[in-house]
């Protein structure tokens, strides 16, 4: 179970780095935080799990989306 979740975290992290759309990357990163929170719960650290869920999946996602909204779409390789 834990190995499965860790593999999922690595896959999502690679997707975050390689995805073209930055919004998809942000959502994948928030999913990484959520799975981390699940892992902390399995490892019996509920305090850390609450922090990870609230800060990683909540506030930091909001801040990233806010920063994304003030950026423009541009594709360098199309030229």
């Amino acid at each position: 179970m834990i190995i499965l979740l860790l593999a999922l975290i690595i896959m999502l992290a690679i997707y975050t780095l390689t995805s073209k759309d930055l919004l998809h990357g942000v959502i994948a990163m928030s999913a990484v935080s959520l799975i981390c929170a699940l892992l902390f719960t399995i490892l019996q650290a509920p305090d850390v799990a609450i922090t990870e869920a609230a800060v990683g999946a909540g506030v930091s996602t909001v801040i990233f989306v806010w920063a994304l909204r003030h950026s423009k779409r541009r594709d360098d390789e199309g030229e």
Partner: protein
Amino acid sequence: MKENSKRSRYWSRFTTVIAIVAMAVVLLPIFLNDTSWPIEARDYLAHSGTEESGAINLVSAIYLGYRVFDTFGETIVLLVAVLGTMGMLSRVESLVDTSLEEEHTIGSVSGFSLTNEKRRSHALRTHLLEVVTGKIGPIVLLFGFYVMLYGHVSPGGGFQGGVIIASGIVFLALGNPQEGSSGISNPELLVRLESAAFLTLILVFFSGLLIGNGFFGNPLAHTQIPVGYIVILNAVIGMKVGTSLGFMCIAMMGGGS
């Protein structure tokens, strides 16, 4: 041109490999060493931590009792981070406004924004968002207060509850688009609450001096309710974290100024 891009791709792969090797060099000794964990502090806490601090949740007993200096540092770090964000935000807003004039931004990535934010289009701001956040906001706020005030019994505490309270404040701000319809998302009130909470925090830290337990000392240590100190600290830290993060998010969504 093509050669150039190919070379840069190889270079980026090379730097990735170097980064992974450097991480391995730093982390492998930690994974591979077989030094036994220190057990003295663990045994002491497991044996007498609950009686000494009165908290059932030993994690909050540690970070608000035995290691309260770290918590004080964390609070200051958060204060400085919010201050820096607000300082940067006041400059970023002016840059953003000029760039918005050049180009239509309809269909940009997100739907959440407050009504007085300077945007071309509120196309993605639907009534669904307002209805759901307005209804769910008070419940989230209540849950945040629960996590904050029961930090000594159940998992949670000031920081976690504070972040949930901040989410509740942002939800209320999003769900009540008319100005002033929900008093708690008023930025001026949030700033005042934050300052008052930080002042109270420092006063609580000094309160041990009056009894003779020193700075950070628990003034209720030898009474029937030593846990009162942890409850008060949780409440004050939760108010500080919640109001400062809520204020920051509201300011980022254009509610501040």
